[in-house]
């Protein structure tokens, strides 16, 4: 009798019968989502290349002089580091990922405590911790881990209704917000707060509670406007731009840069307005894209962010695990919200916040933080493709 053919010989690499870790990952991962983020990173690399000469010119001076493509090469290095991290995180089993996040949240909250003590001051705010060759913002790394931890905390309610999860989560947010406001970092505080509200909303708290929260938010913003100088100047500059007593030079030149290229742009390297922009490679990179690649490219980028958010949220319609649902929704809305705020600031429908465009802005260490966050998102959306069929697909034919 002939021996049966070995199992290995039958298994094509990454084929459906491949049962290795990589093979399983390949079939379980949301490949469209992966592709979208790769597209974003590629666009970001091109955009940073476009903005790099402007940023180099801006930050050169005195003894320091940056090569025109200084920021481009640094971004390239960070992507080379960060992308494998994203893939690695996306391979983590969901329980391991959750556990690591809980530990990470503790570590980075600790770092956040350290910022006022050992932090470096940049542009009048103390947000960074230096580590030899680079520096990082603990809040950037804390963001995804905080969301996952919150999701875990809120999902505990499924097991024990009596747990006071909402007050606990509010306490956690309060600590982080307090630390952030001391830096000061208004924009990041808003993102953390928004993520918390979104998680509460999805966890099914009653509507009247949410309305009360909204009212509290408005009061908080009014209080911030009255007593928090950073918020006062930013909001004043946006609301009373025409009064002329506030310097709108930054936002005006951003808008001028955005529209300078018309629909189709001046072409790569053809932009001239970008040299007048503050932070051309981070906060205002969307405007640089507008000038060099045209407003159509800007619309395309907005569409990509929307696609990512929509794809993940629709996918969640057949997720029944409360933790996964909350964590994934929290991660993707935080990601989308940050993109929306940045774009809204650039097209002048929101006041200046100092927020970057995820995966497109030059980021250094924040690219690593974003990759961890998106890696978690990919890990939580991993699914056996044969286990579920979405009941929401329109049946036809």
């Amino acid at each position, binding site marked *: 009798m002939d021996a049966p053919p070995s199992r290995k010989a039958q298994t094509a690499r990454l084929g459906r019968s491949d049962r290795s870790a990589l093979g399983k990952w390949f079939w379980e991962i949301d490949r469209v989502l992966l592709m979208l983020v790769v597209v974003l990173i590629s666009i970001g690399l091109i955009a940073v290349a476009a903005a790099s000469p402007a940023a180099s010119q801006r930050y050169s001076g005195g003894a320091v002089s940056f090569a025109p493509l200084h920021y481009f090469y640094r971004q390239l290095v960070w992507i080379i580091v960060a992308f494998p991290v994203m893939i690695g995180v996306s391979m983590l089993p969901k329980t391991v990922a959750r556990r690591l996040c809980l530990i990470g949240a503790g570590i980075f909250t600790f770092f956040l405590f350290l910022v006022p003590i050992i932090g470096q001051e940049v542009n009048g705010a103390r947000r960074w911790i230096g580590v030899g060759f680079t520096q990082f913002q603990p809040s950037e790394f804390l963001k995804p881990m905080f969301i996952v931890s919150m999701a875990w905390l809120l999902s505990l309610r*499924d097991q024990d209704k009596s747990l006071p999860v909402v007050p606990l989560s509010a306490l956690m947010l309060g600590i982080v917000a307090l630390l952030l406001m001391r830096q000061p970092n208004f924009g990041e505080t808003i993102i953390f707060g928004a993520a918390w509200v979104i998680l509460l909303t999805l966890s*099914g708290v009653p509507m009247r509670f949410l309305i009360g929260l909204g009212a509290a938010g408005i009061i908080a913003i009014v209080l911030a406007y009255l007593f928090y100088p950073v918020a006062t100047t930013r909001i004043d500059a946006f609301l009373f731009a025409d009064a002329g007593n506030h310097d709108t030079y930054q936002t005006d030149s951003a808008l001028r840069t*955005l*529209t300078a290229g018309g629909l189709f742009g001046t072409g790569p390297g053809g932009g001239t307005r970008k040299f007048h922009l503050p932070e051309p490679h981070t906060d205002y990179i969307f405007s640089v894209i507008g000038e060099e690649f045209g*407003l159509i490219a*800007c619309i395309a980028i907005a569409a990509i962010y929307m696609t990512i958010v929509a794809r993940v949220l629709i996918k969640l319609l057949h997720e029944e695990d409360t933790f996964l649902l909350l964590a994934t929704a929290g991660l993707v809305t935080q990601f989308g919200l940050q993109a929306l705020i940045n774009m809204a600031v650039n*097209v002048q*429908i929101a006041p200046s916040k100092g927020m970057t465009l995820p995966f497109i802005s030059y980021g250094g260490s924040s690219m690593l933080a974003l990759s961890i966050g998106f890696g978690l998102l990919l890990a939580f959306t991993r699914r056996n493709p044969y286990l579920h069929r979405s009941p929401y697909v329109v049946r036809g034919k």
Partner: protein
Amino acid sequence: MTAIAIERQGVSLPGQRQQTLSLTYHRLMLMMLVFAGVTTLIVARILYLSVFSDRADTGAVGNPLLPARGDIIDRNGVPLARTIDAWSIAVHPKKLLGDPAELAVKLNELMPEKSAAEYLSLLKSDKTFVYLSRRAMPELVAAVNALGEPGIAFDREPERLYPNLELAAHVVGYTDLDGKGAAGIERAFDKQMSDPATRGEPIQLSIDARVQQALEAELLAAMHKFSAIGAAGVIMDVKTGEVLAMSSLPELNPNVPGKGSMDARFNRITLGVYELGSTFKPFTVAMAMDAGVVKSLGQMYNCSSGLRAGGFTITDTHPFNRACSVSEIMQESSNIGTAQIAAQLGAERQKEFLKKMGFLDRVEIELMERGRTLTPGNDWGEVATMTVGYGHGIAVTPLHLASGYAALFNGGIWHPATLLKTGKNRPVPAGRRVFSEDTSYKMRALLRLVVTHGTGKKADAPGYRIGGKTGTAEKIVGGRYTGASVVTTFAGVFPMDEPRYVVVAMLDDPKSTAETYGFHTAGWNVAPVISKVVSRVGPMLGVQPSTSRDANLAEVLPFIRGD
């Protein structure tokens, strides 16, 4: 697309949990709608910006299809004025990082129009924004940029460009530093050219750049040859009133209007009023024929001696010293004869005709530079009627004259002059009848006679059957006529057998030369301009030269007595 319906199948969960989940799904979809809404808002805002960002500094580049200011083109589409993107250099004194003293010296080296001290006071001033240079050349922008001062800002701004330099400068006009029309069509159509709703469409003029060039070149040559202080010319379509060429000299470059003198900026054709002398005589004869005073071109008048009128005597340059026919009066440009015809016509009828031809009002054309005519006014007695009859005591613009000649030769209908091309979209404006068709017809032979046998011989161009009338008027200097300084004019029409175009040329204060045997009258200096211009523009305008066709001189030759 996935349906956003909350309808689950085949799932059995404890009721409470299922309810929570369905609430979560509801809220997930709401959240997605919020995201979609904000994204739509951003996209809408981007689209809005791309279409409507119509700020002065981004208008030209923001919407590539819409020029910052409308173009001006000639009747064949040749660009006469267009807008390009230029640079401005400005400084934000409060944002300077470098040493102002050092910077002031460097700026003075690059832009020497201000001293280093002046730059220093600018840089130290309290102002937030000061222009250093506008319409700067790219090399200057690069050099200033190389100074590396972040407080210096560069900006694109639209600049008006006149690619043909002096060509039709007084028609096209020019803009001021802020881009507003200051003269010519630029001023007259400023609103249309700057309104986003209308500026996409260029303004098409009736001017033909080729014809304009020929007229300008010949006028300039004559002006230099006879050392005249100025010259002017206009070519008009007799049937439509369209101006095909209009030139006023000395030349003006509209790209740098500030460098032109007051005299150069002055449009002699529409703003300058002159006593145009004998070129008026054909009007007097035509009025008299229309009124029935002159019944035949052979009607005789006594030209034996000077004519006493008021306190002075009307004389002729070429005295007949005998009775002469109307044809002879025109041929030799007799003041004595014309004055008698005018006297017969009378002041009232003369005024009525002049009024109908628009000679008593500002000239009708789109430009805003239009001179007020000078007339005898309330002193319009018999003496004034006589002098007006031969073109003295009344001052009009050369364009009045051209429009009058057009009416005289197109069958008798006066049209307002226009600088816009007529055609499908712009019909010829309705005219009014001034002369009868019969009178108009008879004038053809009479004025052809002036060129073939009379004072305008040098205006003839072989084959083009030019007719016309010379005019030499003494300029009033210090309140009195002096023989020394004259304005010479020729009003010509061609081809005389079927008139199509009026050509008026004028020289201001031409001097006599050896070639003209000491004369400075129109027949010697401005008549040759007509000949040269018609020879050049005739082919462009599609007028076929012919030696067999001509006005019917048999109507007038019998009344000419050879001496």
